[in-house]
């Protein structure tokens, strides 16, 4: 037998410390929401806000201020200069909110200004322009994607996990109806998603789909914390971050499901012998090795991506780093305690009691 990080007889009391975990989660979520509130919502990259970015690579180290000074004279509206990637890359983003000037003008002007004012070689590596209309479309598409991911996953878990496809179908139908109804009111996509989530959670609770409830709460928790931390760190949201968020959704559930799977197995095997809290503790401990190993190897490769993946992929890797860490934490400290709080939700058990 090879190495072992977690001893087989480990029996940590995860359920016992759930209150501490809830406080930690609440603090993280509130800090993120607070940051979003102060900053007036997420900071959108050009994918969503529209505008133009020019990525420049410079031969030697140079301050953001110097670059800003160099292009200042162009009087580009909403000019922002920021570094990109890691320290040694010397890569910068010049961003402008303008939609009145053509990309050709911006390219030649920046080229000229940098040649005149910067005593260093440089290269324009990338130029992106997104019109305001497309930006708005991409934004609603991204929100829609997040929404459908949560919906489909909730339905899948309820059906597959608790063998209650009828209840899952009821939930899907109610959700679709509800969202359609709200859509008629012409509300913003952001509200639509909020309402859809409330409906999902409410239905999970009402139909006693407690596994789905735990999993969905955990994944909302993960997405909220990642979004919040991104806001606190002043990172921009663009399409690749949405991809990262959806990956986090997938990963978080993956993790949660493996723990839940064991809980279900143990519930069936040890019914009546152990309390539900003990069963959950036992299951989490049994899968702890796997949870830590898998998260460890995944984090290892994402870390490589973060350090060596280059400027374009940097924030994407950062989102994954945060998300995977939070996702691992939530499957142990959030999803399972919520399942504990609402009970095992096995239909035959409730029937037996009744």
């Amino acid at each position: 037998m090879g190495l072992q990080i977690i001893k087989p007889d480990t029996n940590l009391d995860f359920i016992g410390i759930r209150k501490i975990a809830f406080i930690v989660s609440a603090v993280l979520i509130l800090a993120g929401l607070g940051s979003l509130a102060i900053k007036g919502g997420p900071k959108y990259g050009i994918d969503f806000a529209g505008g133009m970015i020019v990525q420049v690579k410079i031969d030697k180290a140079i301050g953001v201020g110097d670059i800003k000074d160099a292009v200042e004279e162009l009087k580009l509206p909403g000019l922002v200069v920021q570094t990109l990637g890691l320290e040694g890359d010397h890569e910068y983003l010049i961003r402008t909110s303008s939609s009145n000037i053509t990309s050709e003008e911006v390219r030649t002007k920046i080229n000229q200004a940098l040649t005149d004012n910067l005593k260093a070689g440089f290269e324009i590596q990338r130029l992106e322009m997104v019109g305001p209309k497309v930006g708005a479309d991409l934004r609603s598409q991204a929100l829609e994607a997040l929404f459908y991911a949560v919906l489909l996953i909730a339905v899948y878990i309820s059906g597959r996990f608790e063998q209650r496809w009828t209840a899952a179908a009821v939930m899907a139908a109610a959700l679709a109806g509800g969202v359609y109804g709200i859509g008629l009111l012409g509300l913003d996509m952001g509200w639509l998603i909020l309402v859809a989530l409330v409906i999902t959670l409410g239905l999970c609770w009402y139909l006693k789909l407690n596994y789905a409830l735990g999993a969905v709460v955990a994944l909302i928790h993960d997405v909220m914390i990642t979004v919040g931390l991104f806001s606190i760190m002043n990172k921009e949201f663009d399409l690749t971050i949405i991809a990262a968020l959806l990956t986090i959704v997938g990963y978080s559930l993956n993790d949660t499901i493996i723990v839940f799977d064991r809980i279900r197995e143990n519930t069936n095997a040890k019914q009546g012998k152990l309390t539900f809290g003990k069963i959950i503790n036992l299951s989490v401990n049994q899968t702890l090795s796997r949870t830590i190993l898998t998260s460890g190897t995944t984090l290892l490769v994402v870390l490589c991506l973060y350090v060596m993946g280059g400027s374009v992929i940097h924030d994407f890797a950062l989102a994954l780093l945060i998300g995977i860490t939070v996702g691992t934490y939530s499957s142990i400290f959030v999803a399972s305690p919520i399942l504990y709080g609402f009970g095992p939700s096995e239909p035959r058990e409730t029937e037996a009691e009744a």
Partner: protein
Amino acid sequence: MQSLRLRAILALLIVLVGLAYMLPSLPGVKDSALGKILPGNGINLGLDLKGGIHLTLGVDMKTAMDNNLARLGDDLKASAREQEVYILRPTVLNETEIEVTLIKAEQKDAFEGVIKDYSPFAVEQSAQLDGDKVKYVLSVPATYRSEIEKLTMDQAIKTMRNRIDQFGVAEPDIRKEQGNRIQVQLPGLKDPERAIKIIGQTAHLEFKMVDDAADLKKAQQGILAPGRELSVLLHRQPNGSYSESPIVLRKDAVLTGEYVSDAQVRLDQWNNAYVALTFNARGAKIFTDLTTDNVNKRMAIVLDGKVYSAPVIRERISGGKASITGSFTREEARDLAVVLRAGSLPAPVTILEQRAVGPSLGQESINNGIMSAMVGMAAVLGFMIIYYGFGGVVADIVLVLNIMLIMGGLAAFGATLTLPGIAGIILTIGMAVDANVIIYERIREELRRGLSAKQSVEEGYGRATLTILDANVTTVIAAIILYQFGTGPIRGFAVTLTLGIITSMFTAIFVSRILFDLYLKHRADNAKLSI
């Protein structure tokens, strides 16, 4: 157990097919003798890795509709005149309606007959005006509008394709997107601005007669005789920019770009480039008649509303040839010839989204991506061997197979590898070991319970498989949604993630089991298992 040989052969076959598709992606293999017998051409690289331009263009449907209605109105006027029914010049009211005025009220029935026979219009309302005139509002049916939209989109795409083909870009990708949008991808192009100019130029060419008798001062104040319009004449300056001066034209185009059959770049005796046009038979006849009737008058050559030159017609020109001079650079003249040959766009287009990636950044992204994948993989491979011993070796073998199959799969399905796609592969490396970890932890548990190596392996795989399936389905759901809603690079990520999950199930569950079974086959029941 007895099916072990069968399973091994099946796995080997799949791996070989994967290998055959993967190998051409490696540098050197594609052009070698081996590359010639292998299927496929290796993995397509996305624009973010290859460098190039991604454009989303919006077609101005309102203008397309207005132009179409104006043309229909002119046709109606001409048809009516053939029946000796006279109407005033129609005006376009909105995207579905035009207004026409019938001069003689007693021709009402005749005119309505003309409308029915010669146009898609229906009479919306009519009103008797003072005197003898009747004002009509005519509308086209809703189906007509959607038909025109479809035609306009198809024609715009066809025209753009023609232009790009002449521009000489390898593997351009032009497709219709939702909401009157067209997506154009031009890999490996170095001069984005020129490409945008060529693709986006409406290139609506018209020949109009100049009204030299008009008073320019009054015209600039907006006082114009009916049927006249104020335009600008461009003069090229020595430094390459243009200055403008006003010019009054007759509104009706005497000839348009539709009649042009060819356009070429020529040089005059001072080595200035100009564009030589050849008209088709019909155009040549119109041009001959036109020059015959208008000797000593000026004719303006109007491109997208601007007058490039307004030469005086010295004599009758037959043979159907004309030229556009404007002292262009050779490159400008060449680009103009390209767009004129390919025909005009049916409506103006605007650039809604543009992403241009330089080839050096693309190469850097590939290098970074591959480097981080290598390092990440090496770390995971080393860790697995240290942690699981023999089991780790098995996990490592199937992990390498897995990466190979993802690359083979991408090549076989003609998917495009993007930078987020590389990230997807790297993430898969991390997650692929998950299946093995789940199985191995199970096997360890069974071993601790005192089962033999063979029984533990059996139990471990049996119990873990369903868990792995469940866990992976959710990731696939997320990936499918990403594919559905995402564009470009995001789709690339979704594709590699999905492919990675499928191949990792095959390698981590199916292939690794074969390796374990082979290992345990000739061992005693009480043999120890290094896991």
